[in-house]
């Protein structure tokens, strides 16, 4: 069975400091993993994806994530937070019977000036 756990519902960082948003997954198969960002009153935008190539994945806006199979984790990081990074972030796994998408509950990122 597939599932996704986002370990923090809210994260608050100061502008210019690193960002870490944590995601653990459970998958019976080799999964595809994604991070999406959602700004208020908008749809979800893909930040980055892992599809069994390089384990360190670089995305848009300076974000990156590392796939760690031994830890079943796919944490999202950014070296220096910007005010425009304030948004909701969703970790998503695709896999299993029917190759469906499974969403985490989201992490709300606040960036303090």
């Amino acid at each position, binding site marked *: 069975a597939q599932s996704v756990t986002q370990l923090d519902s809210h994260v608050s960082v100061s502008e210019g400091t690193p960002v870490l948003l944590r995601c653990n997954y459970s998958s019976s198969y080799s999964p595809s993993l*994604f991070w999406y960002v959602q700004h208020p009153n*908008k*749809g*979800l935008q*893909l930040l980055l994806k892992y599809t069994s190539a390089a384990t360190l994945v670089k995305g848009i806006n300076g974000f990156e994530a590392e796939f760690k199979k031994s830890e079943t984790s796919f944490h999202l990081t950014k070296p220096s937070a910007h005010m425009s990074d304030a948004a909701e972030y969703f970790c998503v796994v695709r896999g299993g019977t029917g190759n469906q*998408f499974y969403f985490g509950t*989201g992490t709300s990122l606040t960036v303090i000036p």
Partner: protein
Amino acid sequence: EADIYQTPRYLVIGTGKKITLECSQTMGHDKMYWYQQDPGMELHLIHYSYGVNSTEKGDLSSESTVSRIRTEHFPLTLESARPSHTSQYLCASSHRRGGGTGELFFGEGSRLTVL
């Protein structure tokens, strides 16, 4: 920029009215989805489709219905809107596993308010 469009973006309507939320994509994707999302909350899958004439119910029970008569079009209908239907509805599409890059492409969402 993803080519998936939702209309209307915002809709305020009275109880008992029939509404249709439109969703169209120009990417030729076979799989399409509707998600329901309350403010600040997680997404819940309410309907999906593998292709033309295919529709399935998702994980969250919904009084809405969908149709898939054309590949590019996946409208969602509420026959009689109620205040409990107030929410944001997000449409998405994807390739099947064997083709494309595997991610979901989302529309901008339709925010429905039922008075």
